[in-house]
Each structure stands twice: as structure tokens, then as C-alpha cells.
């Protein structure tokens, strides 16, 4: 059993910190023995905190390590602590990393396989560069997990991708990505999630919410990679999806009249098009309780053969193997059904008020 070497990254250098930037943690190979994790028999974990409200402003490139499936690199905010975002891009004492990067750079970039990026808020700043990304896993093999992150991009004319993967197998789920809309609609180099640059690459892209992106989902399949997309919500994107997606891709929703992708063999008969999607608020892409465009339209992935999971971006249980799932990163959780609830007509007359018929009211947690 590998030893997990947990080191705290806190830009405010609070009690218990080890590094004040993710970049310094990486430079120290996570304080593992050599950075050759299989030989060290270690898992390198960066536990990110923000004890004083300061953002991490140095982009990080993970390179020069050796990993395998059980001795991997993990960058995350621990949900049992208070430093993870609450499903919106945070301020205050929530960890976030914000930086501008050069061409082909990323705020969080990895040249290694077997990397996990979980629960991180990432802000790609404008730098007048091209082919940039918030999170980029440029592995040639192995697995990477990218989940529960929030990515956004600063305005300014540059191409940028929220989450970009190259080779290996990438599992990308429960992320909210917005504002990657500063380039060309339908672009392969600007948008929400881009998968499989290399021919042997496979990406499973499930239950992500993509808003205001040039292209929502991008299959960079010109070299023959494979991308499966299920339960993704593409809202206000120039083109919801571009490229060829693998058979099994289905249950995606958009406000547009078409998804825009080609699904091998067709079969994507459950995509929801021209949907009216309602969110909780400005830059808050939790579903509103009144949403009728994504709520209940998803497929249950609790027992998915490739990427089974059961929670949403907030860590809330989507309801088990028999539940009806929502599309997107957020699941509206039904807390209680108030039966026989009666509303009064708003007739401005207290004494002579008339009442509506009794009805049942569902109360949700976003």
C-alpha cells in the first residue's frame, strides 16, 4: 500500500502550511523521496487551502515525475475542510489559482500520466496568447481524473480551453466551465472541454456544465482519438459541440437547435435540444429549482461501465442507482415534498383573500 504524502499549499502561509504555491510544491516533487512515485511507493497529494483570502497566482507545470496507476499525483481541495469552492467561482477563504500563461500553456499543466485535479477553482487570465488552457493534461498514456473544478477565462481575444487532454484516458466530470468565448465559434482551439489530441487518447466527459464557450465540447479527433460525452449541459455556446464523438455519446442538453457533433453510429436519441435552461443566478450555474431544461433529463451513471460515480460538483449524492439524474455538474436534490401546500392569490385584500387550490411543492438543494 502506497504512502500518501500529503502536503498543504496555502498562499497565506497559514498554520500547517508547507508551501505557499502549487508551483513550489511541484518544484519539490511534493516532498516525496525522489518524485519516482512507484519506486518511492508514494502518492503525492497537494492539499490546497486559502486561510487568508489570497489567490495562488503562479501557474504550475507538473513535469519530471514518474507515476503509475496506484502511485499518482493528486491536486485537490479536501471537501472535509472549508477551502473548496461552493459550486461558484469563489472569493474569500477558498483556494483558487489565477494566472496568465504563454502559448500552449495552462494554469495547471501536467506532462505526466496519472494525475488527479479535484475541486480547484482556476482562472485563466488574458495574455494575448493562443492555445491556452485552464487545465491541461498532456499525458501520452495512463489515467487522469479531472472533477469538481470551476474554470473561467478573462475577457480578451485569445483562444483558450477550459480543460484539455491529450493522450491516455481522461475522466472529466462534474466540472463547471464558462467564459471561454473570446475566439471563434466552433473553434477546435477555444471552448469548454477538448479531448484526445493523440490517436490513442480516450476521454470520458460526463456531467459537465459549459456556459458561454466558443465550442462547448471539442473532439480533437483528427488524429483518431475517442471521446465519449454524456449528461453534459452546453448553454449559450457558439457551437455546443464540434467533431466526431464515440458511439454511446448521448443525453447531452443545449439551448441550441442542435448539438453540432457527429456521433458514430448515431444513437444519440436522448439529447435535449432547444431547451430552456434556468440557473441559480449570474455566474452561478447551479440549476434553479424551477429549471425544466436539464432537471431529470440525464442518464444514471451510477453503474457506468467506464466512469461510475454518484455525486455532483458539490459532493451531493445524485440519488443512487435508481435515481433520475439531472444533466450538468449540479444535481438538484429533492429535500422534501410539502404536500397540500396552499397559496393565496395576490389580490391585495387581507380580509377578502381568496386561496388557490392545495398543491404539492418540491423543495430542492442546489
Amino acid at each position, binding site marked *: 500500500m502506497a504512502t500518501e504524502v500529503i*502536503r498543504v499549499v496555502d498562499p497565506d*502561509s*497559514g*498554520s*500547517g*502550511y*508547507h*508551501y*505557499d*504555491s502549487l*508551483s*513550489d*510544491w511541484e*518544484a*519539490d*516533487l511534493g*516532498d516525496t523521496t*525522489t*518524485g*519516482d512515485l512507484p519506486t518511492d511507493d508514494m502518492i503525492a497529494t497537494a492539499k490546497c487551502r486559502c486561510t487568508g483570502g489570497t489567490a495562488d497566482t*503562479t501557474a504550475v*507545470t507538473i*513535469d*519530471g*515525475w*514518474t507515476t503509475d496507476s496506484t502511485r499518482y499525483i493528486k491536486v485537490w481541495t479536501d471537501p472535509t475542510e472549508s477551502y473548496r469552492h461552493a459550486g461558484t467561482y469563489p472569493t474569500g477563504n477558498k483556494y483558487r489559482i489565477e494566472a496568465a500563461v*504563454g*502559448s*500552449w500553456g495552462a494554469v495547471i499543466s501536467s*506532462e505526466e500520466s496519472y494525475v488527479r485535479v479535484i475541486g480547484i477553482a482556476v482562472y485563466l487570465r488574458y495574455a494575448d*496568447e*493562443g*492555445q491556452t488552457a485552464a487545465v491541461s493534461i498532456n499525458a501520452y498514456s495512463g489515467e487522469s481524473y479531472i472533477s469538481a473544478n470551476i474554470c473561467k477565462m478573462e475577457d480578451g481575444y485569445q483562444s483558450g480551453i477550459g480543460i484539455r487532454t491529450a493522450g491516455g484516458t481522461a475522466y472529466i466530470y462534474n466540472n463547471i466551465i464558462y467564459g471561454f468565448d473570446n475566439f*471563434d*465559434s*466552433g*473553434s*477546435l*482551439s477555444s471552448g469548454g472541454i477538448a479531448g484526445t489530441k493523440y490517436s490513442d487518447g480516450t476521454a470520458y466527459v460526463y456531467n459537465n456544465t459549459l456556459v458561454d464557450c466558443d465550442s462547448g465540447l471539442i473532439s480533437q479527433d*483528427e488524429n483518431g482519438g475517442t471521446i465519449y460525452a454524456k449528461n453534459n449541459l452546453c448553454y449559450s455556446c457558439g*457551437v455546443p459541440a464540434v467533431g466526431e464523438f464515440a458511439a454511446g455519446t448521448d443525453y447531452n442538453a443545449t439551448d*441550441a*437547435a*442542435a*448539438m*453540432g457533433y*457527429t456521433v458514430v453510429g448515431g444513437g444519440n436519441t436522448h439529447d435535449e435540444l432547444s431547451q430552456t435552461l434556468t440557473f441559480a443566478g449570474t455566474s452561478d450555474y447551479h440549476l434553479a429549482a424551477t429549471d425544466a431544461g436539464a432537471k431529470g433529463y440525464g442518464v444514471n451513471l451510477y453503474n457506468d461501465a467506464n466512469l461510475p460515480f454518484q455525486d455532483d460538483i458539490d459532493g451531493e449524492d445524485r440519488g443512487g442507482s435508481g435515481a433520475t439524474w439531472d444533466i450538468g455538474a449540479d444535481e438538484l436534490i429533492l429535500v422534501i415534498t410539502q404536500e397540500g401546500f396552499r397559496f393565496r392569490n395576490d389580490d391585495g385584500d387581507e380580509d377578502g383573500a381568496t386561496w388557490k387550490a392545495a398543491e404539492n411543492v418540491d423543495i430542492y438543494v442546489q
Partner: protein
Amino acid sequence: MAQILFRLKDNVHPDPDKDRRGSYKKGYPVSIKPDGWYEGNPNWAQSAYADKTKWFVVEVTDATVEELQHYAGSWKDNFDYEIVEARPAQGQYDVRVFEQNASASGANAITQAKVESFLTKWGCTAISATTNSVAFTFSLWNAVRSDAFWEIPSVVLKGSFVLNGYTPATGVGNVTFTAIPEAFPNMDQAKITTMITRRIEERGGTIIGIDYPAFTFEIERSDILTRFRANVKRKGEGIYRRRQFVLPSAVVDTIVATGGFAQRTKAELLAEIRNGLSE
């Protein structure tokens, strides 16, 4: 004042290319810290930075963080090119691209393998290499029809190009692109028009007329060459070494022997630190 956090311990990877590109070595600047970075911080002593077998610090007494930031940069490619011979009547140029960030001893010199695929995507021909230089023939007409110029895979499947005229004296070409609407599934005429118009204008073209699905535009050769230069830089350039600057081992040993902390002025640091390009 500002402080530079240096790596003392070598990180090592068995793959030599990966080791050079990804591993921090003894004497590499890691990050730039503000004045008083650790003095007065009650938590610093228990942080990873307190391990003096891994780190040392140089305080630069007359510099700001911004003034030192370049020391924490990677050694990156920096391509440039020159036109060796122009044949404007044919819209052709013999060009050579070279590496500005090759060291004095030739480290990180450009090779044909490094740029050939990009040049091919631009329709370049007669590609050959000499030391730190790759020569080729660049054709304006090939370039303006290339996937690389438009950043669209298989652009010839999206529409066709016709050269209506080219004026060698001004370098202005008049081109019509006729889109194949079926190649843009799920996009209506308005969306296709907006996308193509924007793409032409973003690349320096001027729309002369639209008779959907035909878009006629003028483009000047310098716009194509500028786009080419930027594209080769974007797609061909990478990181050669994790850090461009390094403090020599003897200097590091001296600092470590005195407790892992030293003060320098900007000028003193500049005199001691080594730029990889000078190696």
C-alpha cells in the same frame, strides 16, 4: 527588496530529455518572493522551505519582485525568420527560420524535425536544414489555402478558393472562398457568415463582397507572413530547459556554507548568475 527561492537539491528523471525539460536542478531559481517573505512568519519554520538541504534564499536588496521575475522563467524556444530571397511576381519567398535562444555552444539549436510538420501544413516546399537554420520556400497562394493559416483541419473540405488577382507591387491578393454549407452541419447561413467573416478579418483580410456562400476578400502578403510567423512560433516552440538561469555550483556552496541565505544587489546577482544562452 525581494527574495529568490533557489533549488539546492537536484531533481532527477531517468529520461534525459524529460530531465532537462522538467527537473529543477541545484542553483535553479524556483520562485520570487516578496520582501520579508519568511521573516516574522510564525509558521515558516515548520514549512517545507525550512529544509536547508533543499532550498536556499538570495535576498536582492535593490530589486522588486517584478524586476526579478524573469529569473524564474523556463528556457524556451524563440524562433525568428528572415526572407532570403523574394519573388513577388510569383508570390514566393525563400525563407529561413532560426532559433534565437540557442546557446553559444549550440544547445537548443533548431532542427528540421522540430518545425517540418508545421511548415508542411503551411504548404511550404523545398525544406532543408543547416546548423540552427531551416530553409524553405513559402508560397502566398499555398499559405492562404492552408489548414494552418485558417486553423481549420482539412479546410479544403469546407470550401474552395479562387485567386481572382494578385498585384505584385502592392502585395494584395483578391480571393474568393466559396463555403460548402453542408460542411458546417447545424449552422445556419447567418452563423456561417458571421464565423467566416470574422475569421477572414481576424487574419488581416478585408471583405469585399459576400454572395453567400461565396466570400470575396482582399489580403495583403504581410498579413499572411505575420500570421505564418506567429503560428510557427506558437506551434513549434517549446521548453528546452526548466530554467534559463542558474547560479553556479560554487556560488551555491558558498551560500549554503553560510546558512543558506545571502544578500546581493541586482548587479552582484547579475554578475554571478549564469544565463543558459551564454553556455
